[in-house]
């Protein structure tokens, strides 16, 4: 029973993660990406990447605090899809927006803080994505967890990257920043203990708290 539910949850994750890409392609074919499609692709892939990364980060607290063990299996696919959108985002910027014109790219974006934030975030995610297989988990042992902590600075830098690009209304990036902050907070042992105590006092249904 549990296995079956997990199975469906994983299929759902794949569908939900790929749906935005399907919609993006569909909208492109229908000419519905505004008069400036390249910019629209940049915006959409960037948002999808950030949202999926945050969802991936939310999996661990949901498992350790609320015993939603099946959710922890979604961490890897969500994170990898997040990275996929980050790659599309980067490729679109270099390839479509700047036409692989390195001179123009160098002139236009080198030395700009938002570019560095984005590039470093992507570089931080790269080894994490590569080592997400079972083989690498075994090979790296304890170091695997250390390496995968890079997801947090990557998420923070992605939000910073977004924040630098908005003109004046910073509500949306700040919302993402708050989400990353909250997820980081939940990883602190002290905070975790308090939340666990609260959970016990509120008498969470045992199947939720101890199904793992």
């Amino acid at each position, binding site marked *: 029973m549990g296995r079956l539910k997990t199975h469906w949850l994983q299929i759902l994750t794949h569908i939900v993660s790929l749906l935005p890409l399907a919609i993006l392609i569909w909208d492109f074919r229908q*000419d519905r990406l*505004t*008069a*400036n*499609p*390249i*910019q629209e692709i940049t915006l959409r892939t960037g948002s999808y990447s950030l949202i999926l990364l945050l969802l991936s980060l939310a999996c661990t607290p949901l498992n350790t605090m609320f015993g939603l063990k099946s959710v922890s299996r979604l961490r890897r696919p969500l994170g990898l899809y997040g990275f996929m959108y980050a790659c599309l985002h980067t490729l679109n910027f270099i*390839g*479509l*927006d*700047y*036409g*692989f*014109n390195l*001179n*123009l790219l160098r*002139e*236009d*974006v080198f030395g*700009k*803080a*938002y570019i560095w934030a984005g590039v470093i975030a992507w570089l931080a995610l790269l080894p994490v994505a590569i080592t997400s297989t079972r083989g690498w988990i075994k090979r790296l042992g304890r170091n695997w967890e250390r390496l995968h902590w890079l997801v947090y600075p990557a998420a923070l830098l992605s939000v910073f990257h977004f924040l*630098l*690009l908005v*003109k*004046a*209304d910073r509500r949306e990036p700040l919302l993402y920043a708050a989400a990353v902050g909250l997820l980081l907070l939940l990883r602190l042992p002290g905070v975790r203990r308090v939340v666990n105590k609260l959970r016990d006092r509120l008498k969470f249904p045992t199947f939720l708290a101890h199904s793992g």
Partner: protein
Amino acid sequence: MENISPFEITPEHLYLSRHQFLSRRKFLTGISALVASALFLSACRKQDFLSGLGGSDNVELTPAARGEPGVTDNTDLVPSGKDEPGVTDDTDLAPPAKDELGDELTPYDSIVNYNNFYEFTTEKKGVARLARDFKTSPWTVEVGGMVNKAQTFDIDDLRRKFGQEERIYRLRCVEAWSMVIPWLGFPLARLLREVEPTAQARYVRFETLYDPGQMPGQHSKTYAWPYAEGLRLDEAMHELTLLATGIYGKPLLPQSGAPVRLVVPWKYGFKSIKSIVKIDLVAEMPTSLWMAAAPHEYGFYSNVNPDVPHPRWSQSSERRIGEVRRRLTLPFNGYAEEVAHLYQGMDLRKFF
């Protein structure tokens, strides 16, 4: 009605048909070209790119090119041009399909569905829908301040009194995209001469309607509404500075700044304030909404300048809407010959 809209004379399809088709096809072929170029990074890319600019080295600033066969669709209808770029007058019935640099007009559909008009929403594709029911009649424009003859003009009086002419201008947004738009309007100078600025008047301040009931974006506390902009008096009196009331021969739609807006083609788009209700002649340099919101990013002058980067990004290139490849941005948006003298001796890095 005594004033016949040019739209009634020139069928829209003359403007539209070829351009929409071309730009869509151009876009798709451009995409395939890029996919190909991704595979074969050619060494002469820069050369390619520059030649795509339409020979900007020897820019011909008179619109004489319009009369040459093969340059426009409807050469037989094109009258001889005037001396200024993009300037035609009321008698010109068939407008050219390109600007004086040979760049094609942006399709009407793109112009009216891709708008920066934060009074409605910060989302460009959402403005048209939210602005649909915006009331542009009755509408008055109050012109006052340091003038001898302060007046309040009804929008219909404005159109009648100052005439309507077509001007094809490039519009360069600070976000590094651009369009070529056939505006309908009249030089601001005509209006200013009518109200007679006094000797103390040195700047012109413009204000957009403030009506959060109709403009939901004005509920946002992020900006100091109403939108305000300003020009130095000599900039305002310049022949290229336009008060526009239409696009493609049709009255402006709300998302484009109906019923009347400013168009200053050598400055970034945000200077061209929309839906104007108030024009004041003043002695001190006015503070625009953007200067107040982010003083390090937006200066008073905001002339299009590829050599002065925005603090967060460069302004050296831009994307023309409908095209895939970026173009190099021209000083003063290609109007340097007409306006550069206004800024002689000024450090344009300081007065950005």
